[in-house]
């Protein structure tokens, strides 16, 4: 049959061990939670960065790029045609002394003008096509710069958040400290109680009963 000391000792030691284990569990859980939270923050920021990257990819994809190139080429081509037409159409024969010229000369004048206009139209059309890609590249560069600026801020947030993690993990390691301490205390007390119980068992038992009473 167990004595009360032993029972108390075992109970305290068991409680202390359980408390320490719970303390470790709390610490592990807190560390895991801290890692999960940081992982979530990084994932959220990564998702924002990825969305920007996708936006950039969409902007730079072949079809979109070619659309912008064609649009820029067309815009320039229209502008070139306008300037060319304005230049040649304003060449009034009356103001350049050709109006009253013999028909041969007048025809040469008209033919030279038309020929120049046609040749120039073709050249400037080609130039507009060449310039279209420059314009599309310039637009892409500006867009990429803009997105890079936003991504640099996100990258900064990711680094800043990540830098805090070691400190948070260090905090999390101490999350079970109270339970560990109380558990250690309980175990120590339990050990003490156990020792006290053993000491008591080693002492001779007091003589009680009829024989002792008769002796006295």
């Amino acid at each position, binding site marked *: 049959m167990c004595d009360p000391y032993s029972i108390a000792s075992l109970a305290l030691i068991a409680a202390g061990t359980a408390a320490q284990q719970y303390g470790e569990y709390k610490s592990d859980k807190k560390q895991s939670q801290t890692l999960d939270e940081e992982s979530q923050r990084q994932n959220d920021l990564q998702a924002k960065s990825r969305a920007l990257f996708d936006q950039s990819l969409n902007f730079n994809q072949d079809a979109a790029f070619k659309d912008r190139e064609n649009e820029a080429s067309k815009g320039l081509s229209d502008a070139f045609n306008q300037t060319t037409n304005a230049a040649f159409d304003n060449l009034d024969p009356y103001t*350049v002394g050709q109006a009253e010229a013999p028909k041969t000369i007048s025809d040469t*004048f008209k*033919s030279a003008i038309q020929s120049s206009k046609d040749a120039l139209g073709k050249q400037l059309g080609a130039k507009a096509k060449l310039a279209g890609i420059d314009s599309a590249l310039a637009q892409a560069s*500006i867009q990429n710069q803009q997105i890079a600026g936003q991504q640099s801020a996100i990258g900064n947030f990711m680094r800043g958040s990540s830098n805090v993690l070691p400190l948070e993990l260090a905090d999390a390691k101490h999350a079970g400290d109270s339970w560990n301490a109380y558990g250690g205390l309980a175990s120590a007390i339990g050990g003490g109680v156990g020792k006290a119980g053993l000491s008591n068992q080693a002492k001779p038992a007091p003589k009680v009963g009829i024989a002792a009473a008769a002796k006295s």
Partner: protein
Amino acid sequence: MGMYGGAGDPGAEARQQEQQRQLRVGEGLSSIDNSFKGFDDNYFNGKQQAYRDYYSPQLNKQYQDSKDAMLLRLSDAGIGQSSAAAHGLSRLTDEYARNSADVEQKAQGYGSETRADVQGLKNQLVSQLNATGDSGLAAQAANSAVALQRSKSSGFEPLANAFTDISGLYARDQQNANYANALNQPYQTYGARLKSSAAGKLVS
């Protein structure tokens, strides 16, 4: 606070500080965006138009002057109504239209360059903001940068002579006219004729 009475939870404090820093950076980014909102399509289109407004009148004047000079020379040479005059004027106008197209292309290029410059400026401010995390400083720097960009000189140089080649054509026309005159003068010396003929050939 820890159970041992330490200086609190350093991780939690650091997290709070980081959140505040990110908040400040976010505010700074908003300040930069706000300061730069005036740099819209209208602004850059205005820059393109400024380029056109500066160079087109110069080009138009040069063309008009060159055309007048050419007509005068052709008339003086008595070939105002000639195929040479037709080709000369056509060539001059061709050069004018080509230069007008250049002005247009450069105007659009200038608009794009300005747009890229502004974006670069904005990115510099974002980098500074990322480094300092100071939204107040970012707002101040953004306003200064915007003011600087707006007051920046265009750096436009006056248009160089766009019709140099055509000026050469006038000279040849004149020489050809002299040559033609020399042929029509019965008492012209052989030396004078030779000198004139060596100067150039008829345009057509």
